[in-house]
């Protein structure tokens, strides 16, 4: 980004920390971009004539007489149809060797949608995965993360969901992604022949971590363009939001803010909410759906990042290896889609809500029976039947390699019910039992 004639140049830096530098300057706007010896930086604090800049690539090697140029605008992205199919870095500059994108320049991290201009989400996103479609149905305009330990195949499942979902655009925001995973996504998308619907903003582990802070807003600015201007259905994939939060904590801790839980800034909830709340369904048909990844450490969801995320998103998806059947399943206990009730039994067959709950309840009974067995107690006949049911349920429905339609999922569930239980044990409304119980 070249300096223009009217831009003011300053050269007296008075203070440097690892992520920030402070200098005397005037006429500077809050949030404005600047370059410090060519490195991109953003105004984060102004006190009289002292301006503090957050330097995205870090301040290593910055001298006190560095040339600071203020650019007179907040970080922005040029949006147009030409974004489709392209790969960008955190600043929105192409990294695929292609030309600069032409279009209207929009400041990222823009204003929120007026709630009364939203529409209630109501469109089911079918993924074929029963652990999702049956138990945790996704809806356009929803925001939902995978909560997963680093060794779980969340990127694969996310890519699978993205490809099966019927959307107009898929926008990938990668934060602290390994280069291998980046190439994996690139491969999957190009093999599926959908590269022209994909837009990627990439920050890998090889890029400076503070740069990541720009990724979600870049991705969502592009998403808003397609959803608002073009009325398109946009799916935004953000992985990994824990890396994003780590970058936040680096910056805030270096600005002497009092850290809150797990050394995260006190504003973590608002910072994450600003991103996730961009998920929206518009009355004109456009929508932004956000599927994110929040990596956990040792499955701990009480850590500030997953905890705050859970309070913001509309549910969460957990993957787990079920050692009884040797498959990765979508955990029915801890996973939840909060918007499912907007579609189940309405856009899907009437028995969906009750079948879903009954199956999970029986699966819970099986877990109790298993504990009993492990504690060395005798199992009742009912216990044994629930455990047999659990195995079938896990293999035929919960496993992530299942790929069937929702009605078929319901039929499979009724089959399992009648195979293992009596109608009283299943506890479903009588009229549904009369209609669907397999004799």
């Amino acid at each position, binding site marked *: 980004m070249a300096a223009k004639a009217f831009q003011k140049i300053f050269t007296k830096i008075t203070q440097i920390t690892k992520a920030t530098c402070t200098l005397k300057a005037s006429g500077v706007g*809050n949030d404005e971009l600047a370059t410090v010896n060519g490195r991109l930086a953003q105004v984060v*604090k102004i006190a009289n004539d002292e301006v503090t800049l957050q330097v995205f690539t870090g301040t290593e090697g910055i001298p006190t007489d560095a040339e600071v140029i203020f650019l007179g605008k907040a970080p922005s992205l040029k949006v147009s149809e030409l974004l489709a199919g392209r790969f960008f870095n955190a600043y929105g500059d192409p990294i695929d060797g292609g030309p600069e994108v032409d279009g209207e320049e929009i400041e990222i991290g823009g204003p929120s949608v007026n*709630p*009364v201009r939203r529409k209630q989400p109501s469109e089911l996103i079918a993924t074929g995965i029963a652990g999702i479609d049956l138990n945790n149905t996704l809806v356009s305009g929803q925001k939902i993360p995978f909560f997963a330990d680093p060794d779980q195949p969340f990127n694969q499942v996310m890519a699978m969901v993205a490809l099966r979902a019927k959307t107009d655009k898929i926008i990938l925001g990668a934060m602290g992604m390994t280069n291998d995973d980046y190439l994996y996504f690139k491969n999957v998308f190009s093999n599926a022949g959908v590269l022209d619907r994909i837009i990627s903003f990439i920050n890998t582990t090889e890029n400076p971590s503070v740069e990541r802070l720009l990724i979600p807003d870049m991705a969502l600015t592009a998403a808003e363009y397609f959803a608002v201007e073009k009325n398109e259905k946009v799916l935004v994939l953000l992985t990994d939001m824990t890396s994003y939060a780590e970058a936040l904590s680096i910056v805030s801790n270096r600005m002497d*803010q009092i850290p809150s839980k797990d050394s995260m800034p006190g504003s973590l909830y608002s910072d994450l909410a600003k991103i996730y709340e961009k998920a929206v369904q518009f009355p004109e048909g456009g929508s932004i759906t956000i599927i994110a990844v929040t990596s956990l450490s040792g499955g701990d969801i009480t850590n500030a990042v997953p905890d705050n995320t859970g309070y913001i998103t509309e549910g969460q998806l957990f993957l787990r290896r079920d050692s009884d059947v040797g498959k990765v399943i979508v955990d029915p*206990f801890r996973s939840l889609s909060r918007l499912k009730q907007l579609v189940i039994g309405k856009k899907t067959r009437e028995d969906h809500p009750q079948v879903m709950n009954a199956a999970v309840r029986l699966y*819970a009974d099986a877990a109790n029976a298993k504990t009993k067995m492990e504690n060395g107690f*005798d199992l009742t006949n009912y216990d044994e039947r629930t455990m047999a049911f659990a195995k079938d349920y896990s293999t035929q429905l919960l496993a992530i390699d299942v790929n069937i339609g929702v009605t078929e999922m319901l039929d499979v569930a009724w089959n399992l019910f009648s195979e293992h239980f009596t109608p009283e044990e299943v506890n479903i409304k009588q009229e549904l039992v009369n209609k669907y119980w397999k004799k």
Partner: protein
Amino acid sequence: MSTKGIVKGIVSNLVIVEVDGAVSQNEICYITLSGTKLMAEVIKVIGKNAYVQVFESTRGLRVGDEVEFTGHMLEVTLGPGMLSKNYDGLQNDLDKMDGVFLKRGDYTFALDKDKLWDYSPIAKVGDTVKAGDWLGEVDENFQPHKIMVPFVFEGEYTVKELAPAGKYTIYENIATLTNAQGEDIQVNMIQKWPVKRPVTLYKEKPRPFKLLETGVRTIDTANPIVEGGTGFIPGPFGTGKTVLQHGISKQAEADIVIIAACGERANEVVEIFTEFPHLDDPHTGRKLMERTIIVANTSNMPVAAREASVYTAMTMAEYYRSMGLKVLLMADSTSRWAQALREMSNRLEELPGPDAFPMDLSAIISNFYGRAGFVYLNNGATGSITFIGTVSPAGGNLKEPVTENTKKVARCFYALEQDRADKKRYPAINPIDSYSKYLEYPEFEDYIKDLISEDWIEKVNEMKNRLLRGKEIAEQINILGDDGVPLEYHVTFWKSELIDFVILQQDAFDAIDSVCPIDRQKYMLDFVIDVCRTDFQFNGFLEVMDYFKKMINLFKQMNYSEYKSENFYSFESELKKLIAERA
């Protein structure tokens, strides 16, 4: 001349303004940013520097930008026309804003300027009146909306003139009052009130005692809340706080429902204004939206306005209470409000209290809950604000400042539990830890005996004892195994499961089960307690489980059937047969 200032420093939405005259704490000012005026509130003053929190994004703001002070604190506009509106946290009418996105500095009027209201006078010429007294009334969505002597008027006034019944806009004068000095003052239908100051224009605030029916069994039957009572719902994410609050706001027997969405999801607000216009108020048959006001500061809206939003909602509640109405106020989630306070306090570099919350958090919470209550107005009429707030404890751990400080002031505690939610035992309110202090009030006991039955509280207590006993036995069975405990333990355990499944659990998404009127609650509790008091004959614990599962299934079918319908009775007679088999 009003005070002016210029911007000296900016950190996020905290701005330091050098002022040229007097400013007061909590005074509102407007900062001009390239032609747009951004609203802000003074939160600290040191010498010539006023620290203001801006209710908008400060992107692009510069040192040297101009600031104008208004001389008043953050106020709401009160008058007919608030019902069924969607406001932001500062009472801007969201429907009046243009465009898909919220624009900075777009402030819209809270009421309708041109609408004509059907007015009739209540007071008479010559009456002596004071602030809060009723001068007349208009019909607002079928509620008798009282036009009152403005709350800010001090001392006594004589009614000199009153407009005759007819149609008027909110700006037209409907009364002329004469003060003690003999000056005449015109009164129209609108008034303003600073949101952080409680409205205390009532004669008396006794302990509340009348049941506020919510239609939720685990509340009304087990831990009832009362008109003018306070309650709070803490729970980890996803355990059902919002579903429960929405349920209560649909079903509760209140005249006015105000929902403050405080730092939560926009889609949850959308759900309310999408569904409420079509849903019937179970008590009046009118549309739910007609009695509802939404105050929405969703989590992506500016943080400072989040703090304001709960006060905005409370002040509107106080206004309707002064009309002698039953107001139900819900805030979801009060933790977000506390976090907004924390963010600001950190930016001000104040000495932090526990978990970096401000030191005076406890006082702030208790003052807020203190504004709820049941009151006798000056004219003897009653009014109430029932307040229920949710709390979102970090990591689901109830040992944190917001939960602990709320527990000190709220009289009902509805503890949502992860384990129950995981087991889909909704509503996931833990029946043993939760409580309602109102059950201990003798005046409530008298009231409920009169309303339901002489032995009601006795049965409720029996139910709770059985639940506790059931829990203890479950723990023993876990340690000793099914055949390590006597047979009657199994029976006692399954009786507690029966109570759990039939009384406590309730399907919020089933059209029938979701609302359970109090007479139906009585019917079910009587029936369940009868079963619990019955001696059954069994030959082994397996029989116990099978038998009770059948019973639970039939009871649930009853819950899903329309009350006293043919279906309802047919399941009941099946149940009676089943009971007779072993009794």
